[in-house]
């Protein structure tokens, strides 16, 4: 159960984290 829980959170978390990182890179131009 714990392994499934971690796997699921990784499956949704990794794309979300990637999206946030890509957007943050763009957002940093505001301060650069």
């Amino acid at each position, binding site marked *: *159960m714990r392994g*499934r*829980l971690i796997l*699921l*959170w990784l*499956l*949704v978390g990794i*794309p*979300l984290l*990637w*999206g*946030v990182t*890509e*957007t*943050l890179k*763009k*957002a*940093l*131009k*505001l*301060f*650069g």
Partner: protein
Amino acid sequence: MASSFLDREHTVAPPGSNRYLVPPAALAVHLCIGQVYAFSTFNLPLTKMLGTTQSVPGDWNLKELGWIFSIAIAILGISAAVFGRWVETVGPRKSMFTAAVCFSGGFMVSALGIHWHQLWLLYLGYGVLGGCGLGIGYISPVSTLIKWFPDRPGMATGMAIMGFGGGALIAAPLSVILMTHFKTATSGGVLETFVTMGVIYFMFMMIGVYTVRVPAPGWKPAGWTPPAVPKTLITAGNVSVDVAWRTPQFWLLWVILCMNVTAGIGVISQASPMIQEIFAGKVSADAAAGFVGLLSIFNMAGRIFWASTSDYIGRRNTYMVFFLLGIVLYSTVPTLGHLGSVALFVTAFVIILSMYGGGFATIPAYLRDIFGTMHVGAIHGRLLTAWSAAGVLGPVLINYIRAYQIDHGVPKTQSYSITMYIMCGLLVVGLICNFAMRAVDDSRLYRGSAQS
């Protein structure tokens, strides 16, 4: 066999199930349908379908293409309202599956529209079919999450609805990467990108379909007991969807959501030109794009932050903060512009956008407080028509009032000041409605079994 797997009775969680498996299932759906906010990424490439490198006679124009997004958002609200009761009846798995078929099918039909260069197929595909996927997908996990987390309904629904905000953050760079990958000398790669995204999103939404579970009747979190004396504005009973939408509370919440969303949409639609014109010479087009990105991140983060906070300070107090702080910030923005302070200006707007997202994410828990859990998904669906209305009202208010002022000689930088004061007016209306909110009269409560 497939239909039995999708039925509600096959989704009841066995004893000992972990309730934290359900939020990622909801996120899997919301992260996909949130793509709609990044649809504008396709607009410019779609204007060059015949010319490839530039628009030629016969190519679609931006005005025509703008309707695809507008239809999708309008159908989102309508389908959530129409299918809300069905979603409650069939349960989250079948409704998530239907949402996946509609949303991915929308991409496929649109791909055919691109292939045959028929714009009406994009309206029908992404707009109508995809819009149905958006509406059904948006509400499908809401009541399930509220039932799994009776102790923290705000946090639970906030997590899912945060996914809708996060979906755009994924879809925008993903679309660009795919279009670049499929681009050739004779094609912009949009058709192939639509097909690929349709497949990817269908598979990702299936994660939610396979994982989602509803709690067994009478299930409660270990160690949690409902408060003996319900707090003010939190009903101990249930109100059916057919009764709920006839109560003043429903329409107060409708106006509250509509005002909060209208004010936020007004900012989102004008963010990039606004910061460039107010800080002319200080903020470049690239930096303005960064500003829009920053707003998207706070829009997403605000959903989980404010919805979780509402579990502690109460739903009405959370909206009081949105409206009061919003009024202060919107009315201060013109002064910050005159002062030339980019940092303070940006700070004000990221807080405003966090409250815009927070408004969406907190409303399901507010509905649960007022109407109970029985039909909260269906009631939420009907309330989302406020979003459709705001989607029209926000940009119209901003664009037309601004154009009117500029036509009458008001300098561009000052025209935003008046817009901000109008947004304050909208928030005052929302504040009054929120202040007027009272518990539903006992005579409206459902007398039968709540296990619908």
